[in-house]
């Protein structure tokens, strides 16, 4: 177990380093940050001086080393747009994104899993075919389009739910702000998390269904039936639990995807999370924010993968308990 964990950790570190290199080299080529930092009236000499001050004229390897050593200390530099440390900007945005991602993941799982189980167990029923078709519509419409339509329907036309932002937030602890504790915060969560979670819900539903279909054809399920176990036991204790093993991997991956896809949802709903920050940074060529975002998502992703690997240990005894 410890050996396994260390090996995964080392791999994760290598991945992070490669991401850091990619993030750095890629962003070194994007646009010209100087143009963003100054107004258009600034003279060329001043631009050059600024370039020198920012170290943008240093050799690339020097810039990279500086970048990595600082990033390791959570120092991602100062945002060109906001003239604030990027780490502080993110500290304020992370709760928003994580709350949104968490809610949509919850929504996706809470709705997707039962639907998937049903469709897997009743392959030929009309309802499961309907689930499948409706879910296909879910993945066929781009997220942004769904978001726009939801806003149009629920905010502008019906005026039931807010169209943007997090509503009122409450400070919890030193830096976490939450929208879970106010009515307006909860209302503001509904549309974005549905928009964001819809695609993942569809995926999870289809995955569970497919896995279910495979698992119920295995020998041990046949054997369980041959032992006369009631359907409830066979379906839920045996089939579902075995289905969950691959589902956990995909869910882990999807959680990473949710955080990345939050970029679009946050744009549509003006959700003050890190995706919105990132997209604005891309538009404004704010290099420090972009690299920090990439490193952060990569970190979250690697961390989630790591947790999934560890989870495997607890779910699948074949990994946990050695052979005799």
């Amino acid at each position, binding site marked *: 177990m410890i050996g396994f964990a260390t090996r995964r950790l080392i791999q994760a570190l290598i991945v992070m380093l490669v991401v850091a290199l990619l993030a750095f080299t890629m962003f070194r080529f994007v646009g010209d940050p100087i143009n963003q930092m100054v107004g258009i009236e600034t003279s060329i000499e001043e631009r050059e001086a600024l370039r020198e001050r920012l170290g943008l004229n240093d050799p690339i390897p020097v810039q990279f080393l500086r970048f990595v050593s600082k990033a390791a200390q959570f120092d991602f530099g100062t945002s060109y747009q906001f003239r604030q440390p990027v780490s502080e900007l993110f500290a304020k945005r992370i709760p928003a994104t994580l709350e949104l991602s968490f809610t949509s993941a919850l929504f996706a799982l809470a709705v997707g899993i039962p639907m998937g189980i049903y469709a897997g167990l009743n392959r030929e029923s009309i309802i499961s075919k309907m689930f499948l078709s409706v879910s296909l519509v879910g993945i066929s419409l781009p997220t942004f389009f769904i978001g726009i339509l939801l806003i149009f329907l629920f905010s502008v036309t019906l005026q039931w739910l807010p169209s943007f932002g997090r509503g009122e937030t409450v400070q919890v602890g030193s830096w976490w702000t939450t929208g879970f504790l106010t009515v307006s915060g909860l209302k503001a969560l509904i549309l974005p998390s549905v928009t964001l979670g819809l695609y993942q819900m569809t995926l999870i539903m289809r995955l569970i269904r497919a896995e279910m279909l495979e698992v119920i054809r295995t020998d041990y399920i046949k054997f369980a*039936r041959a032992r*006369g176990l009631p359907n409830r036991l066979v379906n839920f204790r045996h089939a579902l639990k075995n289905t969950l093993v691959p589902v956990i991997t995909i869910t882990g991956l999807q959680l990473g995807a949710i955080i990345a896809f939050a970029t679009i949802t946050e744009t549509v709903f003006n959700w003050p999370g890190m995706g919105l920050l990132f997209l604005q940074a891309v538009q404004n060529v704010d290099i420090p924010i972009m690299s920090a975002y990439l490193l952060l998502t990569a970190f979250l992703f690697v961390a989630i993968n790591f947790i999934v690997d560890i989870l495997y240990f607890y779910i699948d*005894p074949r990994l946990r*308990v050695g052979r005799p």
Partner: protein
Amino acid sequence: MNVLDIKHLTVEFPARKSVFVAVNNVNMQVEAGKILGVVGESGAGKSTVGNAVIGLLQEPGHIAAGEVFLHGNRIDNLPYKEKRLLRGRKIGMIFQDPLTSLDPLQTVESQLVETIRTHLPLSSKDAQRRAVELIDAVGIPNAGERIKQYPHQFSGGMRQRVVIALALCAEPELVIADEPTTALDVSIQAQILELMKKLCEERNVAMLVITHDMGVIADITDHVAVMYQGDLVEYGETTQVLGAPEHPYTQSLISAVPRPDVKVERFPVVNYIEKAGTPQKQIDISTHWLGKSRDYEQVTGPLVQIRDLDMRFEVRGSIFPSQRKYFQAVKKVGFDIEQGETFGLVGESGSGKSTIARLITGLYHPTGGSILFGKTELTSLTNRKDVLAMRRQMQMIFQDPYSSLNARMRVRDIIGEPIKFHKLASSNSEVRQIVDDLLDHVGLGAQAGTKFPHEFSGGQRQRISIARALATRPRFLICDEPTSALDVSIQAQILNLLKDLQEELGLTMLFISHDLAVIRQMCNRIGVMRNGELCEVSDCDQLFENPQHPYTRELLDLMPSMELLSRANLETA
């Protein structure tokens, strides 16, 4: 009174264009404490009988006619819920593959307890106690501890014991065992069979054993039902049916069973089963391409000399050498294969016999030792041209006829590929001609070339494999369990074909099998392997009559006795 009574059972599977009758008007009975064997080859419908009794026919299969009685009560027409309660409570079932029959994520105990409590009104404490008793009863030591473990912590044989315990949870009156020992090694098979017989007698359970293996039938059954393509062709007391079969199918089936006690020159041809048995067009080997220009270097003495052969696999890799873990598959093995002989390697799974085949053919590189082929040391070959020259001289026939042919290629291309690759023919039309001849020669006929492998049965595919192996005009042929996936009657034909080819072409063969009986029929000399080591090498007859190594003796003792079987039709060597 009969525990199980099957009357005029007919099971149909509606297919797209027709109705497939899997079981046709079958009658059989089992008494308490007795074992009825249902024997037959693929497609005989024997498993379908078992599934029909327990009510687990796969959709869209259904009982079209007939009745099934359990203790005189009709059960085939019960509503789903009552039928389900019969399963486990009155009828226990044992499946073939113990590796896949148990839920990998639940402990053995929880699977036992849930089954017990489904059928018996016991508290969970009592159920646990009963579970331990059962595990103990099926002969698993340390039942109290082992029961807390997960299936993967048990070996194959132990898992099959767990499966049996599960089947016995609620003291069923009838146990259906579908190929209960097919996936197991010989030694384990004997133990499981013994256990089944013991339980059957002790608990007075009626047992229906479905198997393709005449050895199993001979070993444990009281009665036997022989099925062929859905029909029950012969039914009676085991001694009677095996000793003096009446139906021609039973007769030919029994005569095709290889047995360790009798060595035959050729197996009787069982035309009853598969038509494509003999070469359709005779070719003159002395003038034909196949027999021509065997321009290999002349060798005196053994063709293959293996010395101190070692092979270990890395089971767990690591950048730190001390962290790596290895599995020693072959340990210091050495033997010779004389020109023109058939050398047999026998052993249980994991004994390293297939690894040796792959080491000789160069699929693996040994971690130590030498393989001398003729005058060439194979382990030190580096030049690609030399390697190819060697590859051409030795070919291999594999175990699984379903995976050994590329499903996406036409048979003609499969066989033609080595000819083209080694440039053994001058033109495409010549390649085509050779392929057609080869197909004829292995008894398939040239028209088979345009088809895809999936259009052939297992035996036919194995013939294609043989044709492909011959296409490089090898002098040395390795047969790795060539018939273990085939029905006995087909096995007999393939073994005959191999014998014929060896004789015609003067091939040297390495014949690998787990089945001592087959080995005895095929080989001149035999090596016995166990855990990567070679225990004993001796002449065929001597090995069977006077085994030296204790393991060899053990193996021979465990073989199901075939003495019951009729010896009609056999030309004894």
